[in-house]
């Protein structure tokens, strides 16, 4: 990262419904909200489960792995802290009920929908952002 001058776009990390996602990221983990009653993943995170109606605040750690669901290369500059070109990826996380997370890759990434992705943890000021990148191993060819 070379965006020294403009202030980065940072998330609220202490929201009662979503803060634990960023707390887990700071520990190097991907966590998703899970319903304590029916065990459905509740993403976006909130207390009330749309599947069974229960209220709970449980989280579970999931693998930092996923499959690329879709992506775009951003060519038009919008925010000064995110210089173009960059690539936005939408990743469906392994072992979840279709939980998808967004990540940013510098430059114009060469990607294919369905390919294997892994999380890494970017430190921006005092916030940890889980980001996603292609897995560069042999198993890539099996995606």
């Amino acid at each position, binding site marked *: 990262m070379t965006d020294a001058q403009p*202030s*980065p*776009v*940072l*998330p*609220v*990390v*202490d*929201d009662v*419904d*979503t803060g634990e*996602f*960023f707390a887990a990221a700071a520990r190097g983990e991907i966590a998703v909200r899970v319903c304590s009653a029916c065990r459905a993943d509740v*993403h*976006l995170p*909130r207390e009330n489960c*749309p599947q069974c109606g229960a209220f709970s605040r449980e989280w579970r750690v999931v693998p930092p792995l996923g499959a690329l*669901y*879709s*992506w*775009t*290369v*951003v*060519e*038009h500059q*919008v*925010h000064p802290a*995110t210089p173009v070109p*960059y690539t*936005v990826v*939408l990743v469906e996380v392994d072992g979840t009920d*279709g*939980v*998808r*997370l*967004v*990540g*940013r890759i510098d430059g114009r990434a060469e990607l294919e*929908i369905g390919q294997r992705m892994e999380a890494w943890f970017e430190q*921006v000021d005092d*916030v940890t*952002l889980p*980001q996603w990148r292609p897995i560069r191993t042999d198993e890539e060819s099996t995606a």
Partner: protein
Amino acid sequence: MPDQTWTPGACSIVGIGETDFSKASGRTPLTLAAQAARAALADAGIAPRAVDGVVRCDMDLVSAPALADSLGADDLTYWGEAGPGGSGPAAMVGQAVAAINSGLATTVVVFRSLNGRSGNRYGLVGEHGAVGGDNNYEEFFLPFGMQTPGQFFAVVARRYAHEHGLSIDELSHGLGSIAMAGRAHANNNPAAQFHQRTMSREDYLASRMLSSPLRLFDYCLETDGAAAVVVTSTQRARDLAGVHVPVLSVAQGTGRGVQPGQMFPALLRKSITTWPSAATAPTVFGRAGVTAGDVDVAQIYDCFTITALIQLEDYGFMAPGRAAYVTPEDLSVGGRLPFNTSGGHLSEGYIHGMNHVVEGVRQVRGTSTNQVDGAEISFVSSAPPPGASAMILGVDR
């Protein structure tokens, strides 16, 4: 599902009005709203002081009482709003119909007013403080580079191509056809911002890539302006001087699992290539007692080309995956589905779906600058992603 209590055509649109569309109106949204509303009331032959209901878009800066005050209304007995944003206009007319049918108001102005270019532009990230919290969920998107509607729709467009086995070039063909059809119609509409600018397929493909696979001409025109319609009971409309256009049906829909928040969370729905418009379709056609095949002309919400393309399928005008093979001729007057005959958001102006309602009325009246001969069933949609609404206009029999 047909609703047993819906009466097709109980209310009518009796007046339409618009301001000029520009990049810098030099006027406040209240002034623009009053201009459009007074034009619509004059068209209807109704005195502004007689307005007793106002429905606004939930993103409008003009409040319903503020507009009523500007109009010199004697008393406002009903006001309401719908949205979010572009999913509002058809739903806003629906609120007017509901208010009139239930006796809460008799004469309702429905409007949208914005300085969309010179004032608050959409899709810009705030410069202050951290983003997200309070269940807007922006913390999962903006810090990760997903920051604008165009980027959102680009991700949708690429997924659409993938699910239907299309190359990006094939996808671009369909998107280009939609852009070209709207542009050709704008070239016949003196009120359109792109009235004087023609566009060939080569011009479309040569336009700058903003967020792949979407180009500049896949994006709508940020616009300053306002549009308004006047709704009253069809019984009363028959005594007015002008041509009234009955609302055969109006419907809103979300479908299941719509996700909270306003736009980006829609990327987490089970499908991102079928939208709330698919849930709205059976309701809007069922209430009117017509099918997609009966539609003579359609104004489809087109903040981006891909937005319109997906709705062509969701509303059943084309089979899933087939809208990408559409040609500009298919969407022209004389084609299989004359589409966005004022130029739409892509080439007339972006009044957040209200100019589509106005053009839908013109087609039934026979006064469009791209008139479909004998048009009687006129379809108007208001956009996903947060939810959808749509309406079908017809003739009084």
